[in-house]
């Protein structure tokens, strides 16, 4: 999955001279936590001048009577005083796992998405969580099946063929753990009788770790 599939395209961008209190109000109104900051007006055929980004954490306490409120900054000051200038951006064609890694490494919650010098979107941690939910296939009626297969070519294909032989659709496949010997997969399978499927797979020699056998 690529950033272009999960990003928000309607970006609310602001200028560096915007007073901090206006930014606070905008965050509240638009229910947005990150604003890219562009210098000058957007013009066709000219790159957007992305000069910074500001998050709710940067501006929230400005003007408040709070020990962690930024010193010497007033709500009437321009946002350029607080903005982060070294902006980490994403490209629409970046794989989302790369974006997720960057966000964790840099401890940030959002990345402006730039293409050919233009701001085309923003991708947030929430967008990535939504993508995780979609990838896990929970939007379709299905059962959870967990298996451990040998870490070799064709092992997963054999499993999927066994499932297909039963005329059961696989709604999603995710891997949770792997080493040199084995890989674990979580599949969502469109059957109400996951135990019946598990029995069939075990008979064929597959190590099924969920669902467990019926107790008693």
């Amino acid at each position, binding site marked *: 999955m690529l950033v272009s599939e999960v990003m928000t395209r309607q970006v609310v961008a602001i200028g560096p001279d915007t007073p901090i209190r206006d930014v606070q109000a905008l965050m509240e109104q638009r229910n947005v936590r990150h604003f890219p900051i562009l210098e000058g007006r957007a013009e066709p055929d000219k790159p957007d001048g992305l000069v910074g980004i500001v998050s709710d954490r940067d501006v929230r306490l400005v003007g408040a009577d709070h020990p962690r409120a930024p010193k010497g900054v007033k709500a009437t000051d321009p946002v350029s005083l607080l903005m982060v200038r070294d902006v980490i951006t994403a490209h629409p064609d970046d794989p989302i796992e790369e974006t997720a890694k960057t966000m964790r490494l840099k401890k940030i919650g959002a990345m402006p998405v730039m293409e050919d010098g233009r701001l085309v979107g923003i991708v947030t941690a929430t967008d990535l969580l939504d993508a995780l939910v979609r990838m896990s296939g929970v939007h379709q009626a299905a059962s959870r099946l967990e298996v451990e297969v040998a870490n070799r070519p064709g092992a997963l294909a054999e499993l999927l063929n066994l499932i297909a032989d039963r*005329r059961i659709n696989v709604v999603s496949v995710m891997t949770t753990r792997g080493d040199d010997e084995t890989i674990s997969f979580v599949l969502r399978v469109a059957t*109400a009788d996951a135990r019946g499927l598990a029995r069939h797979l075990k008979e064929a020699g597959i190590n099924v770790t969920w669902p467990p056998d019926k107790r008693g």
Partner: protein
Amino acid sequence: MSAGEARFVFDPELAGFQLAPEHPFKPVRYEMARTLLLAAGALDEAEVVPPRPITDDDLLTVHDPRYVALVKAASSPSARPSDAELQRHGLATADNPVFPRMHHLVKGVVAATVTAVDLVATGAARRAANLAGGLHHAMRDRASGFCVYNDLAVAIRRAVDRHGLRVAYVDVDAHHGDGVQWLFYDEPRVLTVSLHESGRYLFPGTGFTYETGNGRARGSSVNVPLEPFTGDDSFLECFEAVVPRALRRFAPDLIVVQAGADMHHRDPLADLSLTLRGMRRAYERLVELADEVTGGRLVLTGGGGYDAYRTVPRAWALAWAALAGRELPDEVPASWREEWGRRLGVDLPATFADDEPEPTPRAPAIASRNRSVAERLLKQLEEIWSEAPAA
């Protein structure tokens, strides 16, 4: 309750088919429950009524016309659609194989539930049951989880549109009642309540507490996801914490119960681990709540239940006895046991009392988690409900 107030809708054709050999969904359960009740003296022939036929148009109040046309085409021996086309709609799969006369038979199931609702809505009966019904997973244009047409949704739609009733749907099947929930997710005149084994563990993988309904119907979808090995006491505790409050607040004219019997500890597909004692208590409470909030108007269907021979007939006999105000003997009639035992080649239980599941040392932790889920759910619902006062 005097005779004549409860009706048992029955069509022998709906018990006499299979989806496929070895398929876990066994319609014969329905005939077993009827004959058990007759043998036990808890059902009179005078209480048994045949369903009134419905038309294909009646199905279209809920289902997509192209889907109904596909099911019909698949049911005829000639001109069967391709597997690829069928599988796009959940058919020709392990759960929903194409079987002979599929359209006719499943439409018959819908007709029986519609008949039960009509009897109660018009006052011809105070309560009615269709144990062949309860196909709660069927979607607008998709078969799912052994269900092709959604009899519950067609009947509820009719109760709302034709009879002008507010309907509360209560689903105690071990699986989330997803089809009914999604078909009424925007409908403020229908409350759906489902208690089930959590979608984290069990098909269909939905039914979380945050699924509360859309727009004007916000607060009219209620889900109580429970832990595996919940057992009688924790199930009833969560039922009491949520269901009476939701029903009293919604004030329905009719309650429709999906009484799937797969929450039993012997069920091979699910692990809620109840006994017949707990299930009987849940049925009795639903009847009492109907007396309190709808003047008694209640329709009950079957549903899941995959310990089909030993458990389901006894569970549904208990459900009917609660609904019709009848007493069952302690012993399962010997004539019934011998007859069905011979036909099916199984040893059937001798009493309505139940063997208890093996106790789990985790019971207190499971009960505590369930309690916390129910408490947080109710808090969340009370907030939604206080924003939008009941109509």
